[in-house]
């Protein structure tokens, strides 16, 4: 059990970036073993300023500008983890996580298992991801499925400042490695954050549960629309438009990708009989395939229509000029909603 104390202090308007910043600060104040590691996270405050001010307040020893080497960042964080440190590694952009892929997949994910529980690595890897910001190559991708297939990792992606604030603290307090995917196009979206939402004392179990479940972002009866991270806002907008056209869409924000809260999705699918899943990642072999497979396995006889997927196309992320068409957008989501509603 980690001695994490979360104080109830009321509600503030925050951007998602600000909420993560506040969550990091709270975690660092609470536990001197929490370290931040990454490229340019110190004086600069990170290229997205998510760690703004933390270097100034916690110093070089707690906010570490590392050499430019992602394998090195995650690998040394693993070693620090064996001495009880809780490193929060920032990967500057999702496209640059791959040099660390070996450490994450063969080492970090397996250490608890291969040590028969003797080694616990409560690391967090923060990954700004997804597109829609007009960026150049490698700065707009959604690689979450490339991690979800690997047992031993937990994967969380907040869609709101509140979930970002709570989630980052729970991820840090949780005893397992957590990949924390931050939808960068949502960094500057504002929302109300109740900084007292998490229980006062954050046990391992409570922290883990906090980052394991989905939420119903909007209730509905005709179609279940599953989204996470960057596409939740899109899903809500789609639901709004669909409602105007007379279709009641229930939006489920998965939040957690591993574990996948399929119980909640299946429950909703049984109610609506129609499911659409949307994410920015390449559709083939993506998260939506797993959602579709599980819904089919567990709710087949309740379905009126096949589960449809709306995601990125099977191409590398194209030049920014194409991204509006490349990414799921209102038209494409509503098209899928229409198609399932035909049955």
């Amino acid at each position, binding site marked *: 059990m980690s001695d994490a104390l979360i104080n109830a202090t009321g509600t503030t308007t925050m951007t998602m970036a600000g909420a993560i910043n506040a969550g990091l600060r709270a975690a660092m104040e609470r536990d001197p073993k929490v370290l931040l590691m990454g490229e*340019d996270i110190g004086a600069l405050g990170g290229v997205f300023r998510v760690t703004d001010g933390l270097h100034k307040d916690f110093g070089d020893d707690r906010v570490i*500008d590392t050499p*430019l080497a992602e394998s*090195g960042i995650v690998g040394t964080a693993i070693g620090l983890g064996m001495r009880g440190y809780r490193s929060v590694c920032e990967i500057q952009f999702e496209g640059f996580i791959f040099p660390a892929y070996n450490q994450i997949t063969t080492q970090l994910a397996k250490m608890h298992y291969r040590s028969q529980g003797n080694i616990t690595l409560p690391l967090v890897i923060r990954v700004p991801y997804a597109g829609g910001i007009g960026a*150049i190559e490698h700065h707009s991708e959604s690689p979450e499925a490339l991690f979800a297939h690997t047992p031993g990792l937990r994967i969380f992606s907040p869609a709101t400042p509140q979930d970002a604030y709570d989630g980052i603290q729970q991820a840090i307090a949780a005893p397992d490695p957590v990949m924390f995917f931050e939808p960068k196009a949502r960094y500057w979206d504002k929302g109300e954050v109740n900084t007292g939402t998490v229980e006062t004392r954050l046990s391992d179990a409570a922290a883990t549960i906090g980052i394991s479940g989905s939420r119903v972002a909007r209730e509905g009866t005709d179609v279940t629309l599953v989204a996470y991270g960057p596409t939740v806002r899109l899903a809500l907008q789609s639901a709004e438009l669909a409602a105007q056209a007379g279709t009641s869409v229930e939006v489920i924000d998965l939040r957690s990708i591993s574990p996948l809260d399929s119980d909640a999705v299946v429950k909703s699918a049984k109610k609506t009989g129609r499911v659409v899943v949307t994410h920015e990642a390449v559709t083939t072999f993506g998260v939506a395939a797993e959602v579709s497979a599980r819904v089919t396995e567990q709710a087949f006889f309740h379905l009126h229509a096949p589960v449809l997927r709306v995601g990125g196309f*099977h191409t*590398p992320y194209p030049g920014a000029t194409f991204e509006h068409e490349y990414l799921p957008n209102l038209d494409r989501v509503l098209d899928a909603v229409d198609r399932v509603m035909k049955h």
Partner: protein
Amino acid sequence: MENLGPLSEDGLVRLLNHQGEVLQDQTFSPYAAHLTPEKLREFWHDMSVLRAWDMEAMSLQRQGELGLWVQSYGQEAAQIGSGHALRDPDFVFPSYREHGVAMTRGVDLPSILRIFRGLEHGSWVPAEHGFHLYTLVIGAHALHATGYAMGMDRDGLVASGDADKDGAVVCYFGDGATSQGDIAESMTFASVNKAPVVFFCQNNQFAISESVTRQTNIPLADRAKGWGMPSIRVDGNDVIACHAVTQWALEHARSGNGPVFIEALTYRMGAHTTSDDPTRYRTKADEEYWSERDPIDRLTTYLEGADELPDEFREAVAAEGKALGARTRESVRGWSKPATLEMFDHVYAEPHSTVQAERAWFERYEQSFADVEASN
């Protein structure tokens, strides 16, 4: 072992100091001997035009015409000096800041901006210029450079007996890049294969906000000692020295003696990119110190002193810079959005059923809107 720190001037090859005085170096001065005033004016021309163009790109970005811009500002000597040491059989693997080298390889500068306007990821044909596409994943291209050099060797382009036919590869990367495992692996593959590759590290003292002291305790040129590879530290703001040491290194590599490592100590006079804010992590004093060491200024001083920079020449260069700026602006603003279906092109060289099916779906889907519009 003495630790001199990565920013020491120890061992720096310098043939023109920032006061514009020529210095002698036993090994490398001979490699500058052929630099006539005319040739030096060519360097000055290239550096000046490059900088003018860079500033134009900068302002296009500020006007919202480009998503991002990465300046070469301050690194003109390292790029133009080394670039001019290259010949036709040579091949370059740049990182993403080597616009000056691109220029020496005949890449049309405005075309580079297609990348930064989000039209495509690479906008020249590498084989046409002996200049590979930019690589944004730090360090990854150093292995490509090494493999390419191994291929040149296999193809008889190294120590062929006819020195004019011999070629080598130059791989550019930054100080931060030296920490990536791929750079180390490149040095291993290059050395065991005696591959003709010149590793050209532009130490501009920063990896975004991080001082080079975050990457190493000792001069980066010394990294090469770990592989028994010859290495050279050069004043990266001295275009003559950069040129001379690259000549030396290329000759070494082309004649079958294996890889060389060059560290050019320079300074990134601008921000990392237009998204960056250097006031957060470095001082005005530091910037001023280095602005006094501006790579163009020192060549200006030298050429002026030698009475080799006539006004008409300067005016012609300024005019050329302006004209290029105008052409660049016009080009950039004229580029229209490609047809959306193009995003499905070139994923594979041969058809792939998933891409085909998605493309076909998308075409029908787009068409359905057109149909609706038409019927309205």
